[in-house]
C-alpha cells in the first residue's frame, strides 16, 4: 500500500576536480558537487525553487564549454569533466561577490560574507575619493505590521519573485521592474504592499538571503539592537490552524516567538506557509 510510482533511476558519472562522481540522471552539477562534498557557493539557488541561474556565483569550468557554466541549473551529463577550483572559477566567483558588495548593503547576508572572505573579495576597491560608484540606496519600506522591505540590501536573486509566483504562491504581487542596474523588485507602479495583490504568506521573506525582506518582528528587534540569533532556539512543530499539517520552525528568543519559518525539505510545505501559519502565532503571547 505504498508508492506505486517507483521510477528506475539511471545514473550518470562525471568527473569533478579529477574525481569520478555518480549521480542520478537529471541531477545538476551543483547536486553532484554536494554529493562529492565540494563546497559550492550559491545565492539565487534554493532547494525549493526552480534554478534561475542569475547570480553566477556557482559557476564552474566545464570542459568543452567556452564560458563557465552555472552549476545550479546545468544538468550533469555522463562523461562531463568539471573543474570547480581553477583560477578562472575563483576569479569569477570573487568578482561576482565583489560586484554585489560594491552595490548593495550585505551586512546581514551572512552566507555571502563568509564566501566573500573565502574568495578574497574586496568590494571597496571600485570607488576612490573622487570617484564614488553607484550604489542601490533606498529608504526602508515599512508599510504594515508584518513585513519590511529594504531594497538597499537586495541582490536581485529573484527568489522572492519566484516564491510569490510560479514556484509556490502564485500570487504574483511582485515582479522585477526596470532594467539593468536600475532593476528593482516591485509591485505594480510601486504601490504599497497592502494595496497590492500581496496576501502576506511571507514566502518571499522566507527565501530572502540578505535581509532585504524581513519580518517586522525581526526588524523591530534589530532596530532596538535586541536581535540575538546566538540566544535563539528553533523548535519544529505543526501549525495550529487548518488540517493540512504544515511544519513550522518557531524561532524563540527570551521565551518569546520572534519569527516563524518552515523547513524547505518537508513534503507538506516545501518551506512555504500561509499568512496564518506565518503570523498567526501572536496569540500565544496573549497579544
Amino acid at each position, binding site marked *: *500500500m*505504498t*508508492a*506505486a*510510482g517507483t521510477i528506475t533511476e539511471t545514473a550518470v558519472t562525471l568527473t569533478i576536480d579529477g574525481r569520478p562522481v555518480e549521480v542520478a540522471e537529471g541531477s545538476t552539477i551543483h547536486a553532484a558537487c554536494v554529493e562529492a562534498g565540494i563546497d559550492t557557493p550559491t545565492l539565487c539557488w534554493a532547494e525549493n525553487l526552480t534554478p534561475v541561474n542569475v547570480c553566477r556565483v556557482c559557476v564552474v569550468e566545464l570542459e568543452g564549454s567556452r564560458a563557465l557554466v552555472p552549476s545550479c541549473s546545468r544538468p550533469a551529463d555522463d562523461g562531463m569533466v568539471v573543474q570547480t577550483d581553477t583560477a578562472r572559477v575563483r576569479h569569477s566567483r570573487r568578482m561576482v561577490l565583489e560586484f554585489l558588495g560594491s552595490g548593495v548593503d550585505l551586512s546581514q547576508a551572512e552566507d555571502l560574507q563568509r564566501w566573500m572572505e573565502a574568495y578574497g573579495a574586496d568590494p571597496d576597491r571600485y570607488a576612490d575619493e573622487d570617484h564614488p560608484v553607484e550604489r542601490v540606496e533606498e529608504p526602508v519600506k515599512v*508599510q*504594515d*505590521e*508584518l513585513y519590511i522591505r529594504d531594497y538597499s540590501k537586495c541582490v536581485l536573486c529573484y527568489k522572492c519573485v519566484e516564491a510569490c509566483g*510560479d514556484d*509556490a*504562491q*502564485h500570487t504574483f504581487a511582485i515582479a522585477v521592474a526596470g532594467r539593468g542596474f536600475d532593476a528593482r523588485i516591485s509591485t505594480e507602479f510601486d504601490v504599497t*504592499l*497592502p494595496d497590492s495583490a*500581496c*496576501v*502576506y*504568506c511571507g514566502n518571499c521573506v522566507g527565501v530572502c538571503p540578505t535581509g532585504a525582506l524581513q519580518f517586522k518582528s525581526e526588524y523591530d528587534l534589530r532596530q532596538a539592537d535586541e536581535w540575538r540569533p546566538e540566544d535563539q*532556539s528553533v*523548535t*519544529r*512543530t*505543526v*501549525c*495550529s*490552524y*487548518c*488540517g*493540512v*499539517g*504544515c*511544519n*513550522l520552525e*518557531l524561532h*524563540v528568543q527570551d*521565551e*518569546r*516567538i520572534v519569527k516563524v519559518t518552515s523547513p524547505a*525539505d*518537508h*513534503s*507538506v*510545505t*516545501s518551506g*512555504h*506557509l*500561509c*499568512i*496564518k*501559519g506565518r*503570523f*498567526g*502565532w*501572536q*496569540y*500565544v*503571547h*496573549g*497579544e
Partner: protein
Amino acid sequence: MFGAGGGTSSYAEVEAADLILLWGSNAREAHPIFFHHVLKAVADGARMYAIDPRRTSSAKFADRWLGLSVGTDIALANAMGREIIAAGLHDRDFIDHATSGFDAYAAHVESYTLDWAAEQTGVPAEAIREMAHAYATAPNAQILWTLGITEHHNAVDNVVSLCNLALLTGHVGRWGSGLCPLRGQNNVQGGGDMGAIPNKFPGFQDVDDDEVRAKFEAAYGTELNGVPGKHLTLMFEAMEAGELRACYVIGENPADSEADVEHARKLLSGLDILVVQDIFMTRTAEMADVVLPASVAWAESDGTVTSSERRVQRVRAAVPPPGQARHDIDIIGDLARRLGCDWGHPSPEELWDEMRALSPMHTGMSWERLEATGGIQWPCGSEDHPGSEFLHGWLWADDLEGHDPAPFSVTHHAPPKEQLSDEFPLRLTTGRALDSYNTGVQSGGYASPIRYGDAIDVNPTDAAELGVADGERVLVSSPRGSVEMDVRLQPDIPTGLTFTTFHFPELVDANILTNDEWDPRSGTSEFKAAAVRISKLDPEPAPV
C-alpha cells in the same frame, strides 16, 4: 465511506493528478498550502474543474468553474454517474471485481439526465457532460472537497455520491487516484483517530464491538460503555430535552460557532454545570462555572497531530505556558485524581505508546520514528512499515484481502431544507477568508493587512435591485434573526446568492442567520444554505 475515515490519497498524489475536481472547497483561502500541491498539478498540465456556487479564488485557477446552485451537489454527481454509464466510460472490470450494488445505482441514476441536472444545478448540461467524460477518462483523478460538501443537511449523502463516482471509474485504491476531504482543524483528523467520535475507540474501532471493547477494558483495567455516545448536535438536542445537564468543553467555542447560535447559547446557559478548558476566555468560557486554563497545544506542549493526508506529526513545546495555564494531560490527570482515579503522571510519549499498543493502524509509529521523520501516514502496522501513501489498495487485490466489496450507495437529490421564499428571497452561504480562522479567537491575535471583516457579498445586479451600494450597512434577516452587516459588491457570485464569513462574532454575529438543520448521520449543520432578506437600514425619506 468504506472503512476508516480519512483522505484516501497523499498530497504528492494530488500533485501527480491528471484531473482534479475541486468540489465545494475554496482551498486557495482555507487550505493555502494544500492548494500549492494542487497548483503544482495544474502547472504540470492537470485539468481542474471547480464546483462551487461561488467563483472563488480557487475556482479562478480551474479550467472550468461550474457554479451550481447551493445544495444541488447530488443532482450533479448523479448526473455525472448516469452520463459516465451511458457513455460506457465506467470501469466494468473494477465494478465487477471490487464493488456491490452497481445495478441498483445505475437504475437509480437513470432519471438524473443531463438536462434535468442542468435545470436543478443551473449549470449547462454540456459542461456537466464534459466534466463527467474528463473524470472518467483521466488516467489519475482526484476529488477534493471540504465543507461545501459536508455543511449540509444531507452531508453524508453528498459524500457518498462522490464516492460512487470513484467506484464507477476505479479512481480509488491505487496510487494517483482518490478522494480527499480536507480537514478544517489542525487535528480534527487526529481527534477522530484517537477516538473522539461517539462510537469509536482509538483507531476507528467500534465501541459496540465486544471483542474490541474487551481489548480496551483489559488494557485500561475497567469496564467500558459499549453504547455509542452523542455527537455535538445530539448533545444540544439532549440539552434541550433536559437529558444532558453537565458539559466539559475542551478547546471548542460552541457559543460562537454553532448554527442558530442564539439557541445554542440559551441551552448552554441552562446547564447545571459547564466546565471549559481552553487557552482563551472564549464566549463559551465566559458562560462557564469553571474555567481550566490550558496551554497552547502546538507551541507549549508535546504531542502529535494528524493531517488531512493521515500524516501523524509531532508538535513540540517551544515556550512555557503563561501564568496558571497547564498542559492538558496534567489537567485531565488531576481531574481524574480528584474523581478517585490515579493515572500517575504519564509523559506524552508514554500515552502515545499505550495508544499505539491498542490501535493497529498506529502500532508501527514509535515516538523515535515520529521524531526522526517528517511524519508517518497511517495505517502503519509495524515498525518496519513505511506508512501508507494511499488507502484501499485492497480494492485492486485478487481476493479483496478479505474485505466485502465496496458498496455503491443510492442517494437522492434533496434541496436545502430552507427554501427561498418571497419573504427570504436570497440564498446565504458561508465560508472562510484567507487570513482568518473560524470564530477568530486565534487569528484575531495578529494585525492582518488584508482583513476586511465579515461583510455580506452581494452580486452587483442584486445590489442594484435592492438599491444598496458597496460598503453600505444593511440589515440581513433570516427566519431566525437579523444582523447588521456591510455590503461588499462581488461580481464573482451569481445573482440570488449571498456570502459571508463568520470570523468576527463580536462585530457581526453571522451565525444568528445560519440554519441548524443537520444531518442525522454526521451531526453537521447546514451552514451552507440559509434563506435571507437584505433590507436598507434607513428607509428613503418620504418625498416632501
